[in-house]
């Protein structure tokens, strides 16, 4: 990794990363991919997020579904931990709560494979800095 020496370097890196992200997000693109994020703050881990993550990585590979599974911080829904967010290309991310291994399996089979929603969706209830 070359060091960032000027603000222009940082802007360049940011723009590159953003366009890479945009490619992964868009609906019709060879590089688009399902992105799954697992809320792994202390509270998420304490309620079993690690098991869900391990299961998802293994199950998606076994079932030949290409996806990126990564960890993220606390999503804020402590009452519904573990929480995961699933983003299919071209769609807004959906957050599922109360995700144990069975639920994760259901999410793969129903939402990821067939676009059917499963119970436990947490609706967005906040504005971000951009809107």
């Amino acid at each position, binding site marked *: *990794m070359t*060091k*960032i*020496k*000027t*603000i222009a370097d*940082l*802007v360049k*890196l*940011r723009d590159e*990363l*953003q366009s890479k*992200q945009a490619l992964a997000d868009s609906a019709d693109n060879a590089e688009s991919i399902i992105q799954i*994020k697992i*809320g792994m*703050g*202390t*509270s998420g*881990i304490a309620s079993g997020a690690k098991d869900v993550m391990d299961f998802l990585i293994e199950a998606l590979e076994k079932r030949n579904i290409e996806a990126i599974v*990564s*960890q*993220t*911080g*606390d*999503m*804020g*829904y*402590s*009452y*519904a931990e573990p*929480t995961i*967010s699933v983003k299919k290309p071209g769609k807004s991310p959906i957050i599922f709560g109360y995700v144990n291994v069975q639920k994760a399996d259901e999410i793969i089979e129903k939402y990821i494979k067939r676009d059917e929603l499963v119970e436990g969706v947490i609706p*967005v*209830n*906040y*504005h*971000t*800095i951009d*809107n």
Partner: protein
Amino acid sequence: MTKYKQIRIVLNNCGVIDPENIEESIARDSYMALGKCITEMTPQDVIKEIKESGLRGRGGGGFPTGLKWEIASKNHADQKYVVCNADEGDPGAFMDRSVLEGDPHAVLEAMAICGYAIGATKGLIYIRAEYPMAIKRLKIAIDQALEYGLLGNNIFGSKFDFNIELRYGAGAFVCGEETSLIHSMEGLRGEPTIKPPFPAEKGYLGKPTNVNNVETFACVPIIIRKGASWFNKIGTEKSKGTKVFALAGKVNNVGLIEVPMGTTLREVIFEIGGGIQNGKKFKAVQTGGPSGGCLTEKHLDTPIDFDNLIAAGSMMGSGGMIVMDEDNCMVSVAKFYLDFTVEESCGKCSPCRIGNKRLYELLERITKGQGVMDDLQRLRNMSNVIKDTSLCGLGQTSPNPVLSTLDNFYDEYVAHIKDHKCPAGQCKDLMKYFIIAENCVGCTACARVCPVGAITGEKKEPHFINSEICIKCGACMERCKFDAIIIK
């Protein structure tokens, strides 16, 4: 457009980015604010911007952050320090932990900005060792920022150097107070000292030191990126921006929320929080942890900001919010917090060391039904003395739970003392289990389950509980199928 009650500014990246991957942060504009400060702004400009934003310290006190930075910048020394106070110790509060675990770069970036503004090259994060995940992610974040050249020497090709180290605390509540925190970092006992001198003059190792809370820092990069005038449009006249709360207790949607200052308690508890669990009745909400107070129904429509909460007899604190329902005994709640303060008092000054212990003993007496009416005046007098004479913020605020429950739930105290009854049914010493003879069929189930043999009676005859022996465990009541056992 739907109007939501929450705005995520501090939590903007939490739950969105992978905190262990700096590139995900950079893709969401991390370190752009630092770049802007170093390349386009003078340190005075940065301080001016923070002052104009109206940002106030999120650790509880609400001191204007820009002013704090200005004082530190004006004290000249060969070395100054920026300290991040991550010693979150209120029972039920987890905002700072979540920010550090979810978006560590925001805090690192803000500390560097502060360093640039006040002329410090060293940053220290004082974090409790009880937060291993936050420590791990901070370490990774610091290493990655150094690798990318976003911390270290000659940041953005300038002459500005900034390095950050971690300092671990053992989880003592008093070390959230800035002078204690500094002593603890120096390897001394975590005890407060009298201010002045303020840390901005003589802090860590005797050098000017600026201490801010995690959440305060987390607001800074966005203020620089979006401008003070964007930030100060959010919130109330005297409290700008948003506040993160850890909503806990008997509320349906327990969790981390971020609302603009000025949102009412009702909106937080009933709309965002989804109301009280199991359809019970709302009784009180405790804000500000052991330093705060209990607010009631009549405060529900008060807009939350620093000044309103103080006027209502509580305080913002760091943002813990514990909701209580009709089953919570307010005398016991006050006792719980006093128990915590007695445990956490460092013992340096007598009002806090002895006074809080005496307060606790009085409360204990009342919850046991041994109190007298004079105790209430005694509680009040002693609370005021402790508030006025304690050395640091811990003692100055520790009687707040007592005073606010005395103000708002006086009848409950009286019921304990005069009627020897706990209206919420929580104080074990004031409860008595009875068997209603008409309902009892003499099945002996209760007598068999009683662990201390307090229940006697012949088969098929009404049974009897000997309250001298009864330990009030409630096992009999659970077992009885005929609703024959009641609490009086």
